[in-house]
């Protein structure tokens, strides 16, 4: 296909198309104007909210909770995943438990964690950390187990000890898969945090903002909060992707 100087701007087309459709829907009143405010009103609400308003504060609260949950998940799951993955038989013995809780909707765990930690931040963060941890754990363990046999053999044949094979080869071999786990983990943590902010006695956070705007029927605010949550999810994923490209330059090569 012919390359063009406009190629980098192609993704903008979809955005323009969506906003245009939105304007048309508002213009022809396809949807009740109370339910669908105009893009201008929405972006005004978003700009006003983010620049010193409530929305910016709520945004930062959600960022804090999500990052904290992901950090806790990574701190537990990465060492544990390496430990379990280093022995395939060990991982097989806990695989069912990991898969079972990985498949359990984290939202079903809220009541349990509420009993354990009360209605404060601890519950929101720990449920998110719990969900993200299992995702990271599973990916790290598989990354270690799927380390190329030839590469392990190459280290061994050069005289590396078992510990050196682990630190010099297995750890680095598992990094690309670890990043897959971290990206999935942070996305899941964000989902759980936002849901928790909606329903578990919250006074701040994006989930709380969306829910409150809806209750007050302030549609521009609600849409603004939804877009802020979208931007956050996209941004977190992008951030991990950039870090991965920097530190795991060999990924996929």
């Amino acid at each position: 296909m012919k390359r063009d100087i406009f190629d980098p701007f192609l993704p903008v087309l979809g955005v323009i198309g969506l906003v245009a459709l939105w304007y048309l829907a508002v213009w022809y009143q396809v949807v009740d104007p109370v339910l669908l405010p105009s893009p201008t009103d929405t972006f005004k609400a978003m700009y006003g909210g983010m620049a010193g308003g409530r929305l910016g504060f709520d945004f930062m609260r959600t960022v804090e909770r999500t990052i904290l949950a992901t950090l806790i998940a990574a701190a537990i799951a990465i060492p544990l995943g390496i430990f379990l993955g280093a022995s395939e038989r060990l991982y097989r013995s806990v695989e069912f438990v990991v898969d079972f809780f990985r498949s359990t909707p984290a939202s079903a765990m809220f009541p349990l964690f509420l009993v354990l930690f009360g209605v404060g931040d601890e519950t929101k963060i720990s449920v998110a950390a719990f969900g993200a941890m299992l995702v990271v754990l599973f990916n790290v363990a598989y990354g270690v187990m799927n380390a190329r046999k030839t590469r392990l053999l190459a280290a061994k044949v050069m005289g590396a000890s078992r510990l050196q094979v682990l630190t010099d080869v297995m750890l680095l071999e598992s990094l690309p898969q670890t990043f897959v786990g971290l990206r999935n983990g942070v996305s899941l943590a964000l989902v759980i945090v936002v849901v928790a902010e909606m329903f578990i006695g919250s006074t701040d956070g994006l989930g709380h903002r969306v829910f409150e705007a809806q209750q007050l029927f302030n549609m521009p605010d609600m849409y603004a909060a939804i877009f802020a949550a979208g931007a956050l999810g996209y941004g977190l994923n992008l951030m991990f992707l950039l870090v991965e490209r920097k530190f795991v330059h060999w990924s996929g090569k």
Partner: protein
Amino acid sequence: MDAGGPRSNAGGALADASPVAPLAPAHVTVRGLSKRFANAKAAVYDRFDLDIPRGQLVSVFGPNGCGKSTLINIIAGLIPPDAGEVLFDGKPLRAIKFGYVFQNYREAMFPWLRSIDNIEYPLKLMKLPKAERRARAERMVANLGVKIDLNRYPYELSGGQQQLVSIMRALVVEPEILFLDEPFSALDYEMTLFMRAQLQRIFLETRTTTVLVSHDLEEAVYLADHILLLSRGPAEIADFVHFDATRPRTDATLSDNGFIATKAHCLDIFQREVRKG
């Protein structure tokens, strides 16, 4: 069983396959080697004996599945034998330095290390200080006259260059013996020819005892001082052919009478063993 004294066949005296005294003293002695893989009907090796001469390049050739790679993998300690012993000047493997080059260079290199750091890695395992590692690696690269940008990562190099880096990683410890398991079979023909020349140059430069497993008879004969022809399971020495064409060998060697005769003789033996199986 015949301990595998090299036989001279390069002069075209093919009918006369009488054993000739070994040209070089044995470096590696394999005695009573037995190996049977789980779920396999026949043993791969059953009380197998072999002498590998010092400072020579031995290629191992034989029918598919006869255990060519298994042989060097056992000698290099990658696979434990069921019985028998392998000694290097009477010493066990752990007492010597050796190099091993895998067929799959892509999976044998460490992609997170620059090529030069890959080459230095075995020296790091020997706990040499950083400056000395770098000095030794650079000295070797200069001696071999290799012109590759070693600051690049392996995945940024061509297949042949990667395998060359992988060979240098095996050589940097100044091994007593070098094993190569079908090192060029993942390369295209043009690159294979180039790499044969490189390997020959390295061999002439270092005179390291080298064992090369090959599935290409032309390559096996062209590079070798001795061609070890194996029979099918349990593998025995079908013949141990001496090829003494002068080095460096060139494209002209390929049309040389001695080369053609030796290759034809090896092919005869090979066909005989294939028909037996």
